[in-house]
C-alpha cells in the first residue's frame, strides 16, 4: 500500500462514542490508521490520528464530514511523512509542579532545552483548587548533555518556587 499519510486532528466537546464513530467513518472510506493520541483536555475531546488514505486531503475531509458535523466536531488534515517503527526511547522523566502562573512552561522548557533536553513527550494538568491552582507538568525526553546538566538547570528553578523531580529512566529489555 503506497497511499499517502495524513495527520487528522479532531476536536470538540467531549461525549462518549466519538472515537468509534470517527474511526468507523475512516474505515468505511478505505483509510488505514497509524499511531494516535486521544486526550481529554479541559473537558474537550482531542485526537490526533495518523491516517493512510489513497486520495487527496479534501476528499478525506469530505468522506468524514457527515460524522464530524453530526457530533459537532472540528476536523483538520495535514499531509505528513510517516515515521513508523523508529520510536525514540526516553532516558529521563521530569515532573515539575508549582503555583500556576503565566510563563511557567516557557521558563521550564527553555531552561531544560538549553541544558540538553530533547523533549519526546509533555503533559500538563491544572490541579489544586480554583483558588489555589497547581500547575503539574510531566516531561519525558533524552538528556543529550547528561543528567547532571538537567539537574543543575532544575536546581536554579527551585529559587522561583518551582518544585521539580528528575528520574533517570533505565529501560529494561528482556
Amino acid at each position, binding site marked *: 500500500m503506497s497511499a499517502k499519510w495524513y495527520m487528522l486532528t479532531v476536536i470538540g466537546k467531549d461525549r462518549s462514542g466519538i472515537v468509534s464513530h470517527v474511526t468507523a467513518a475512516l474505515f468505511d472510506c478505505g483509510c488505514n490508521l497509524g499511531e494516535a493520541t486521544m*486526550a481529554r483536555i479541559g473537558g474537550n475531546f482531542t485526537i490526533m490520528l495518523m491516517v493512510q488514505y489513497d486520495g487527496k486531503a479534501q476528499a478525506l475531509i469530505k468522506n468524514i464530514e457527515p460524522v464530524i458535523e453530526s457530533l459537532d466536531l472540528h476536523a483538520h488534515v495535514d499531509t505528513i511523512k510517516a515515521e513508523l*517503527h*523508529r*520510536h525514540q*526511547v*526516553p532516558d529521563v522523566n521530569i515532573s515539575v509542579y508549582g503555583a500556576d502562573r503565566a510563563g511557567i512552561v516557557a521558563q521550564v522548557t527553555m531552561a531544560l532545552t538549553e541544558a540538553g533536553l530533547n523533549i519526546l*513527550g509533555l*503533559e500538563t494538568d491544572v490541579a489544586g483548587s480554583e483558588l489555589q491552582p497547581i500547575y503539574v507538568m510531566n516531561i519525558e525526553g533524552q538528556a543529550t548533555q547528561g543528567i547532571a546538566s538537567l539537574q543543575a538547570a532544575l536546581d536554579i528553578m527551585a529559587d522561583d518556587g518551582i518544585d521539580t523531580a528528575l528520574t533517570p*529512566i*533505565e*529501560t*529494561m*529489555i*528482556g
Partner: protein
Amino acid sequence: MAIREILIHPAICLKQTAERVSDFGEEFQAICTDLEDTLLQAPGCVGIAAPQIGISQRVVIVDVKASEFGQLVLVNPEILDHEGLVRGREGCLSVPDFTGNVIRAEKIVVNAQSKEGEQVTFEFTGFEARVVQHEIDHLDGLLFLDRLISRRHDLFKRKIYKANNS
C-alpha cells in the same frame, strides 16, 4: 550450540503457559546453551525466557552485568514473596520498537532450580527484580504489554494502594 531465532508477537508459544522442567539431562543442557547464546548476541538485552526461542519450558536466564549475581539460569522459578511497587520502563525482544511503563514489585524472593537441578533461593531488588519478573511472566504466557500502565497518568491503581496501606 546455536543462536536461535527470537519469536515475535503474535507467536503462539509466547502466550502459552510453559511446562515445568523435570529432566535435567543433555537435551535440556543444550537448550540452556542455546538460550544463553541467543541472549548474548542480543544487544542491550538483560534477560531471556525459553518461550522466546520457541521452547515451552520453565527456564529463564537473567544477565544484569552490574549486579552481584552476574548471569543466572533459573529453572522452574517461583516468586515466594514480594515487597513494594515501582514503576519502570520495559521493552522486549519479542515486541520490537515499543517500550512502556510497567509496575513491578521492588523486591522479590525467588525459589528456583539451577541448570543442574539443585534448589536455589535468591532475593532480588530493583532493576534485577524487574528483569526476573519480566522473564517469569514469559513462562506464564504474559508479555509486558499485558501489564502496561497509562502513558498520560501513570498512577498506581487504587486497589494496590489499599492493599499496601491496610
